[in-house]
Every structure is written in structure tokens, then in C-alpha cells.
């Protein structure tokens, strides 16, 4: 008995001895992002190894704001992410509802298309999407250009479809017998029941929009219409730029999401695993 509990203790120690260095390495870039954001440029470029935060965050942020209008960019990013999330949840739940609850001509074709596009790289549509939105619709540097093209989201439809198809059909049939219209059944019975799924989906969509880089970089490159990641990206690689400022911007982009992540980890995780585990 004693030897067994000792080997268990050894195994427990070995596990932590292996995992702790890895965890420290993994946390290191995030910790340094925070430390750098509180250091003066002079401190960042000094030969000392500094691992603890200083007090210059506000100064750094003001330097950043002088280099690029970051507050405006943050405002655009937040607004776009909120509107995008609402619209995308609406579209994907409507489509998911149709696929889960009705038989109709062309149903298998629609499902095949949605599954097919999951594995299709964005690279293949980015050129014509850009030509169409910027040149034909003349929508470069607008809110619409940021919000509408990314609305096509196959994973969201599958996620919502799964939620709706797991609901018992008696629920809806009873309402139909009463003569309730289909859109009312969707709106007043199905949607409220799908709230947990919609919450998880909203978090994933908000995150995707908040962090989206390539499309906003291409389509909204005018100062004043840039999203926060794009505005920050333009500073990386410039010679005369405040690195403390860039780090303050990186913290402002990351900290709110990280904060939400700590409290809503479950939703993040169910959103990420939705596509994988059936």
C-alpha cells in the first residue's frame, strides 16, 4: 500500500515538473506584452533583463495615440464586432433552423455546399471579393465592407442546426396545431431554447471579428476607417515609432478578450470544439 501511494506521489511530481516549465514558456509572451506596455522605450532598449512591470502605461498609450488614432480604431473595431455578431447569429440561426426542421428541394445540395466551404481556404476568394467590393461596388473604407462580406460562416450554421435538431418536435407540432405561424414558432419557441448555443456562437464570432486582420487590412486601409489590429499593424516595422506604444495597443487589443475568456472559458471551448466532436 505504501509503495503504491509513493509511486502515485512520484507520478504527480513528474507530471508537474514536466508541465510547469511548458506553462511558463507559454505565458511568457503574454506577460512580456504587459511588462513592455508599462516600460519606457528607453527601458525596453536597455541591456538589462526586466521581467517586472513599470509605471509608464499611460505615457505609452499617449505615444501610441500620437502615432495613429487608436481610440477611433478601437471604436470601429468594437462597433463592427458587435454589429457583425448580431447579424451573423441571426443569419446562421435562420439557416440552421431551415436545415434542421424542414424537408425541401435542394436540401442536400445546400448542406454539401456548407460542408464543402469549411475546408476551402479564404485565399481562394479574397482577390475577386476585393475586386467586387472595392472596384465594382465602390465600398472600400466603409462600414459595410468590414461587416457584410465576412457574414458567410459555415461553422455557425452547422452549430445552430445541431442545436435545433436536438429539440423535440412535439414542442413545435403543438404550436402548429394551434395555428401559430412558422416564423413565430422559430422566434418565440425555438430561439429562446437555443440561447446557450447562441451565446457560445456569439463569443466565437465576436472574437473572429475583433481579431480579423487580412480582410480589413485590404479593404479599409484609409486612416480613420482602419480597425484596431490594422492600425496597430501599420506601426510594426516603422523605424521611428514608440514600441512601448505598440505594446500598449497590443494590451488594449488582448486584455478585454482575455478577461472575458477567463470567465466564459466553457463557451469558448464549446465553440471551438463544435466543428470537431460530433
Amino acid at each position: 500500500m505504501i509503495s503504491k501511494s509513493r509511486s502515485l506521489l512520484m507520478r504527480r511530481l513528474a507530471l508537474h515538473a514536466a508541465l510547469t516549465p511548458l506553462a511558463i514558456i507559454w505565458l511568457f509572451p503574454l506577460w512580456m506584452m504587459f511588462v513592455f506596455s508599462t516600460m519606457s522605450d528607453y527601458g525596453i532598449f536597455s541591456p538589462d533583463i526586466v521581467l517586472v512591470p513599470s509605471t509608464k502605461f499611460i505615457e505609452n498609450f499617449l505615444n501610441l495615440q500620437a502615432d495613429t488614432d487608436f481610440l477611433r480604431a478601437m471604436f470601429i473595431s468594437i462597433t463592427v464586432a458587435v454589429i457583425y455578431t448580431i447579424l451573423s447569429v441571426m443569419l446562421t440561426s435562420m439557416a440552421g433552423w431551415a436545415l434542421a426542421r424542414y424537408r425541401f428541394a435542394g436540401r442536400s445540395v445546400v448542406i454539401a455546399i456548407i460542408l464543402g466551404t469549411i475546408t476551402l481556404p479564404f485565399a481562394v476568394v479574397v482577390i475577386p471579393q476585393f475586386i467586387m467590393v472595392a472596384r465594382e461596388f465602390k465600398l472600400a473604407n466603409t462600414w459595410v465592407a468590414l461587416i457584410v462580406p465576412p457574414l458567410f460562416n459555415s461553422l455557425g450554421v452547422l452549430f445552430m442546426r445541431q442545436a435545433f435538431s436536438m429539440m423535440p418536435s412535439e414542442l413545435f407540432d403543438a404550436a402548429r396545431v394551434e395555428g401559430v405561424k412558422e416564423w413565430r414558432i422559430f422566434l418565440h419557441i425555438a430561439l429562446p431554447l437555443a440561447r446557450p448555443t447562441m451565446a457560445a456562437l456569439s463569443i466565437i464570432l465576436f472574437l473572429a471579428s475583433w481579431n480579423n486582420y487580412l480582410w480589413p487590412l485590404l479593404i479599409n486601409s484609409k486612416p480613420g476607417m482602419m480597425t484596431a489590429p490594422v492600425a496597430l499593424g501599420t506601426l510594426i516595422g516603422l523605424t521611428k515609432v514608440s514600441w512601448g506604444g505598440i505594446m500598449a495597443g497590443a494590451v488594449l487589443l488582448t486584455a478585454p478578450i482575455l478577461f472575458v475568456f477567463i470567465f466564459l472559458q466553457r463557451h469558448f471551448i464549446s465553440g471551438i470544439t463544435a466543428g470537431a466532436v460530433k
Partner: protein
Amino acid sequence: MRLNNRIAYAFLAPYLLIFATFWLWPIISSFLISFQNTRVNPWRFAPSMNWGRLVGDPAFYNALYNTLIILVIQVPVMIALATVMAVFLNSPLLKARPLYRFAFFAPVVVGEVAYAAVFRLMFSADFGIINKIIGTVGLSPVSWFDNGTAAMALVIMAVTWRWAGYNAIIILAGLQSIPGDVYEAATLDRVGKVQQFFHITLPLLKPIILFCIVLSVIGTMQLFAEPFLITNRGGPGGATETLGLLLYRQGFTSLNFGYASAIAYTIAALAVAISLLNLFFGREAK
């Protein structure tokens, strides 16, 4: 399920409209553009111009080579690391589990620009903290941005940091779906933990791991932000230029949409081909 065409399509209409406008039409259009000379106004049909150029373009082969090197090194390393993370996080012996979960999963929510900025600063040759730390153990500093191999290693490390936790989340969910009595039976039969991992856990995880590999292949084939931001536009001298970056330069710096479309189709075709190959061999080995 109810048979109802009109109502079903009413619910689907907004979504399908977006799909047709921003995906279906671009996919077709991209194919057509790749056969046109887009350097004249108006564009002219020139079937062999872009595809002919692609076949003989050293810049394309360089980008293809770099992308495949990243694919061959980064994806297996990351998936192995993610599997280790998931298995350890799943261990009942682990204390302070939320802390470890946070450490590995947090990079998943960090945006490309934010983390690219930190990596660039940390790995700076003269005053980066990584070279300072390397210096304290007596090694000479590495010029991460001027040495092609070091720059490539940096891109690989950055992508691995960003995505290992993402894959660990998926693999952990797979682990948790394996019923515990399988292991109980094995333990009763005196099968060691390591053997249990290789003979029970890995075979059962295989479909999940294959899914992660396919996702990673698709991501790597269009890798753009890391070489663009961290190694300064694919530097030094194209040593970290990927297919995604080449597409960006041809399409949006040179505004040669025809050639960029040909590159885009090559990326998509390679992603699909490598994914199918993976799935094929994954099934075969069962």
C-alpha cells in the same frame, strides 16, 4: 421534419444571398481571372499567361518550398505538443488545473497583430529579451531577422505558440469522450500507463488528430500575418515568404489580379490535396 419549400427558403434566403455574392461568385470569378491578362485595360483572355508564369517563377517555388517546410516541421511538432498538453490536462493527478488550462489556451484568443508585435520585440537581435536570456547562459546572440534559418524557426515557434492550445482544446474534448472503463480494464490487466497511451488513447484519438492536422494544413497553406509582421514581409530576402504572402504581394502590392488568382487556386488545390492524402493514409493505417 416538415416538407415546405417556400418557408425553408425564406429562412435560408439571407444566408444564401451572402453566400452567392461573397463566396460562390468569387470562387468562379477567381478561376476566370486566372486565365486573363489583368495588366492591360480592359482585361484580355490570355489562357497561358498566368499559369505559364507560375510554372517557371522562382518566387513561386521559393514560397512553395518555404510553405512546405513550415508544414512538414510545424504541424507535426504542434500536434504532438497539443496531444501532450491535452493528455496532461486530462490527468486526474493534476493540481491547479485552471492555471495550466489558462496558460495553454490563452494564446487562442490573442490576435495576430498583438502577438506578432510581442514576438518581434522579444526576438529583436540587439535588445530582445530572448537574446539577453541566451546571453546569460553564455551563448552568442542569434540574429533572428537577418539569418534565413533563424527567421524560419521564429515563424514556426510563433505559429506553434499561437495554435498548440487550440488543438489541445479539440484533442482534450476527444480524450474526455473516451469512456473510463476502457482504462480500468487495462489497469486490471496490469497494462502500464505508457502502453495504455499508445495502444488505447492514440488509436481512439486518431480521427480527432486527423481533423486537427487537416485544419492546420489549411491554415499553413495560407499563412500570412506571421511572415508579414514578424519577419518583416517574408524577410530576410524572401527566406520566410509563404504562398499566402506571395498572393498578397502579387494581388495587392503589384495589383496583378490574374497572377494572384492563379496562386490562390494553387493554394486551394494543394490544401485540398494534402488534406485528402492525410485522410486517406489515416484510414489506411487502421
